[in-house]
Structures are given as structure tokens and as C-alpha cells.
């Protein structure tokens, strides 16, 4: 297993290099720049030029690439133009917030997705199956930012159950955190739950047709004993492999969801950074996020490899 882990890490290096190259290159195609945003709508051209100079945006291209990689290898992701703080600090500050909401969302997703997927598989081709599948599909098909807007109107304005937005840190008030993160977590969970339902259902179907399940049933175990003892473990594995995918989708979704609910998380940071043309922050953010997801996938793959001997033979994909 160690050998596998090492080989995956080594394989990741060229990918990481490409990732950093993409992040760097993408930025320099952008027309417009951060100076215009910092200056506000009534800034004059002369003021903007001075801001640009002070921010070092006028250096030659080659010099910028070289300093970029030199800094990157030292772990320095640069200074955010709009925040005035190091990019890495900003990302580290924001990540727990998004992580908290993501975990909340993930919990809802897993509970809901697994349950509906299992129920669907057990009632294959019957009404419950159709209903569960339809629910999953609706989840994947609804635009989640639209759902978020609708939720605010329904739950905050008309029912008054939850606040319209904002964020209360858990350390400040667990109840406040729960109240401010529930709608965002639900909006994000919808998409994930749908995916998980489908995958759970199809994996479950596959597992249920296996011999050892028939044997267990023949032995006279109740349906739930059959599932609990035999099927569940096997169902968990594809779920684990999908974890990386789910987190990636969660991060994508949080860009808009955090903006709508006014949550100062990583998604909102990236969204604002892109709209403000905050070059260092966008680069640093893209690289951090991509690397984290890559590493997570490697961890998941290694886990999967360790748990399932069949993968070793097939070679994985």
C-alpha cells in the first residue's frame, strides 16, 4: 500500500505543475485590472496608474512568472490586493467556515442520499424507487442559486424561521451557527444528495444481486440484517470514492451560495477575487483548492486500495 501511495503522490507532481501553470496563465488573459475596482467608480486614470505601480502590476511578464514560481515553492502565495493580507492567511482564515458548512451539508447529504438510495434499491422498479430516483434527479436539475433565493423568501421573510443571511461562528454561538448555516447547507446538499442517491442505488443494486446476499437471505436473516451486515460495507466504498467529487461540487456551489447568504467563506472569497481581478488571490486560491482536492483524492484512493483488493488487480482508473 505504501508503494501505491508513493506512486500516486509521484504521479501527482506533474499534475500539480500543470495546475499551477493553468492558474498562472489564466489570470494573464484577463482584461481590466484590480486598480479600477479599488479606485471606485469615480477614480481618474492617473490615480489608477499610480495604484497599479504601487501594486507592482507593471513588471515585465517573464519576471512575474519567475517570481511566481520562486515564491510558490517557498509556500508564499503572494499578497491579496483587495484584502492587503497574505493570500495564504486569507485562505486559511476562510477555509474553516466553508469547511464547517460543507461538513454540515455532507452530513445531510449522506443521511438523505444513502437512505433514499437504499430504499430505492430495495424497492427496485416499484413506486418508491421511481419516487426516490425522481427526487434525486430533481435535486441535480434545480439551479441551486435559484433555490437559495426561494428559500430566503419562504423561510426568512414569510415564515421568519431563519435569518436572511450572515454568519455566526460556532465558537460564538452554536445555535447562531446552526441558524445561519442551515439554509446554505440545504441549498448545497440538494445537488449532492441527488448524486449520492443515484450512486448508492446503482451500487446497492449491484451488491444485492451478488451471491453472498442471496445466501444471507436464504439463511433467513431479515432484510435489514442482510443490509446492515453484508451490503452496507460494500456500498460505502463507492460513496467514499465519490467524496472527492462531492467536495469539488460543494466548493463550486459555495461560490454562489455564500455570496447569496453573505457568508465570508472560501467560495465567496474566490468569487469576489475573480470579480475584483485580485490576481494573487485568484491564483493562490485556485492552486490551494486544486491541490487540496488532488491530495484528498489520493488519500481516498489509497484508502479504497487498502480496503478493496480487487482494485489492485484492475489497476484503478
Amino acid at each position, binding site marked *: 500500500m505504501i508503494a501505491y501511495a508513493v506512486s500516486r503522490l509521484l504521479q501527482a507532481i506533474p499534475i500539480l505543475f500543470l495546475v499551477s501553470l493553468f492558474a498562472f496563465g489564466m489570470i494573464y*488573459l484577463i482584461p481590466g485590472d484590480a486598480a479600477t475596482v479599488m479606485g471606485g467608480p469615480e477614480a481618474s486614470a492617473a490615480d489608477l496608474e499610480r495604484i497599479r505601480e504601487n501594486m507592482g502590476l507593471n513588471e515585465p511578464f517573464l519576471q512575474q512568472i519567475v517570481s511566481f514560481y520562486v515564491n510558490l515553492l517557498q509556500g508564499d502565495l503572494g499578497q491579496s490586493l483587495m484584502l492587503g493580507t497574505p493570500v495564504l492567511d486569507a485562505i486559511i482564515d476562510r477555509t474553516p467556515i466553508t469547511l464547517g458548512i460543507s461538513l454540515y451539508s455532507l452530513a445531510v447529504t449522506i443521511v438523505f442520499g444513502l437512505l433514499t438510495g437504499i430504499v430505492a434499491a430495495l424497492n427496485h422498479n416499484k413506486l418508491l424507487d421511481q419516487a426516490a*430516483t425522481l427526487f434525486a434527479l430533481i435535486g*441535480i*436539475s434545480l439551479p441551486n442559486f435559484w433555490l437559495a433565493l426561494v428559500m430566503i423568501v419562504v423561510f426568512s421573510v414569510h415564515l421568519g424561521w431563519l435569518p436572511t443571511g450572515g454568519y455566526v461562528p460556532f465558537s460564538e454561538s452554536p445555535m447562531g451557527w446552526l441558524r445561519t448555516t442551515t439554509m446554505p447547507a440545504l441549498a448545497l446538499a440538494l445537488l449532492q444528495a441527488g448524486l449520492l442517491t443515484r450512486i448508492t442505488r446503482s451500487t446497492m443494486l449491484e451488491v444485492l444481486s451478488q451471491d453472498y446476499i442471496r445466501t444471507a437471505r436464504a439463511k433467513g436473516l431479515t432484510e435489514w440484517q442482510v443490509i446492515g451486515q453484508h451490503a452496507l460495507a460494500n456500498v460505502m466504498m463507492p460513496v467514499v470514492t465519490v467524496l472527492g467529487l462531492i467536495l469539488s461540487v460543494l466548493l463550486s456551489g459555495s*461560490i454562489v451560495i455564500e455570496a447569496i447568504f453573505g457568508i465570508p467563506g472560501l467560495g465567496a472569497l474566490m468569487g469576489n477575487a475573480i470579480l475584483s481581478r485580485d490576481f494573487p488571490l485568484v491564483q493562490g486560491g485556485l492552486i490551494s*483548492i486544486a491541490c487540496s*482536492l*488532488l491530495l484528498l483524492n489520493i488519500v481516498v484512493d489509497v484508502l479504497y486500495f487498502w480496503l478493496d483488493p480487487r482494485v489492485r488487480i484492475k489497476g484503478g482508473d
Partner: protein
Amino acid sequence: MAGGIHTDIPDDETGRLGRFLAALRPFTRSLSFVVGAVLFGFVVLVTLLGPFLTDVSPSALSMRNRFQPPSWDHWLGTDNLGRDMLARVIYGAQLSLMIGTSVVLLNAVFGVMLGALAGFYSRLDNILMRVADALMAFPAVLLAIGIAAALGPSSMTAIIALSVVYIPRTARVVRSSVLVVKQLDFVLAARAAGATDLRIILKHILPNSMAPMLVQLSFVFAYSVLSEAVLSFLGLGAPPTVPSWGILISEGRAYMREAAWLTVVPGVAIAVTALGLNLLGDGLRDVLDPRMKVAEA
């Protein structure tokens, strides 16, 4: 089933049309496929018939007619500048379908080509898959808005950005299928008979990889419609002078209390389209190979 479609051909329907209809029959057994086809078909129909359903221009302003709720004069009401929502939603449908189709076509060409090459030539495989992995390391929407922000808002930008995001995923799906198919007997036989690589790929491998490809493409279409909505919602997609559904939601969100229909209608339109496509894809998969693994996002 590795991808072939087995059908019963009745004795008295051996003509081309007959065989075509007969080939369709298994699809009708899948509820998903039928419902999906109906939903998506409805959207396509409305899009094509659009100019006949309403002769009002989607950009015709009327300051006197603002915020009309749905009525006989305006089936879907009017917005804050008095523009007819039905016309705007229909034109939005045209845009979404145009962008979705373009992205799917680009995927069909480049995604398939790259996937086939990667599956067939193991030396290319390494390089291509590293690049694909690198691109897929970025969360989809994040990459799309990054590219869209770089290139500036336009329909073309949305198409390019979404293609860059989904082509690696499509390529992977095709590659997996090609990896399996190229080991099959008839391919090895063709090789032994001296057929060129190109011929093998085009005549033998691709036709037998159609199933996962079709399913993947229908999902790509669905994601394109949804992602394009996010892009234009953020102001990074089609220019607002063309009423994309995402822009309709973005324009309507300030008035959610006073004129809820402005946001509800485009949201439902997106959902129906995406749902139809997802159901189609599911149905295709059920019919062609229920155990098929496709890239989900």
C-alpha cells in the same frame, strides 16, 4: 453488454424506417427515457416554434407596463422595464439550447477524439490524462468562471469555458470504454488483418463505445444548461442584451417580494430542461447498459 444494441426485428418491417422504429422500441420501455424525451422535446418545440408563439420582441420596453403579473395579454407577465416575460423565456431557451448544443458538439468532437487517442495509444494516454487530471482538479464552476472572467462575458466565452471544463470528463469516459473495447476479439482480428489504426478506431472501436458516449453527452448538455445559468447569473455569460435564463433570474432577484414570477419562471424553465436531459441520459443508460459507469459531474 459492452455497447451493442440487440433488438427484435419483426418479419414484416424490414425497411429502414421499420428497423429504425423497431430499434426505438426498447427505449419506450424505459419510463425515464420517455418522460425525459417528452420534457426535453417540449423545450425544443417551444424553442423552435418560438417566433410563432409570440411576435413580441424580448427587448421591447414599455415603462407603462412594468410588473404586470401573468395575464391573457402577457402569459408570463412583464418585468421591471415592461418587457414580455414569455418572449424573454423563449429567447432564453434558444440561447440555452444553442450553448448546450455547442458544448455537446465540441465534446463530441474533441472529447471523443482525445479519449479515443488516449485509450488507443498508451504513450499519449499518460500525457493526455495528466492534463485532464490537472483540469479536473479545479472545481467545475470555479474553473468556468475563472475562464469566463478572463475572456470577458459573451456566449462564445460560456461555450469555451464550459467545453474546457467538460471535455476532460468526456475524454475520460470515452477512454475507459476504448480501453475495454480495444481488447475485444473483433478488434484484434482487424488488427491482425492489417487495418490501419485510424480505420480500427473509426470503424470498430467508436461505434461500440457509443453507449457511454451518448449517455455522457446528455449529462453534459444538462450540466451546460445549469452552468450557463450560473455564469450569466454572475454576469460572466451571455451579454444581458440577450435574455439568458440565468440573467432573467439575476434581474428578477431584486423584486422577489413584489414580482415573484420574474424569478420563478426562469428557474422552473432551467429545472425542466435539465430534468428532461437527465432523465433522457438515465433512460439511455438503463436501456443500453444499466451497469455503465459514467462521469457524474
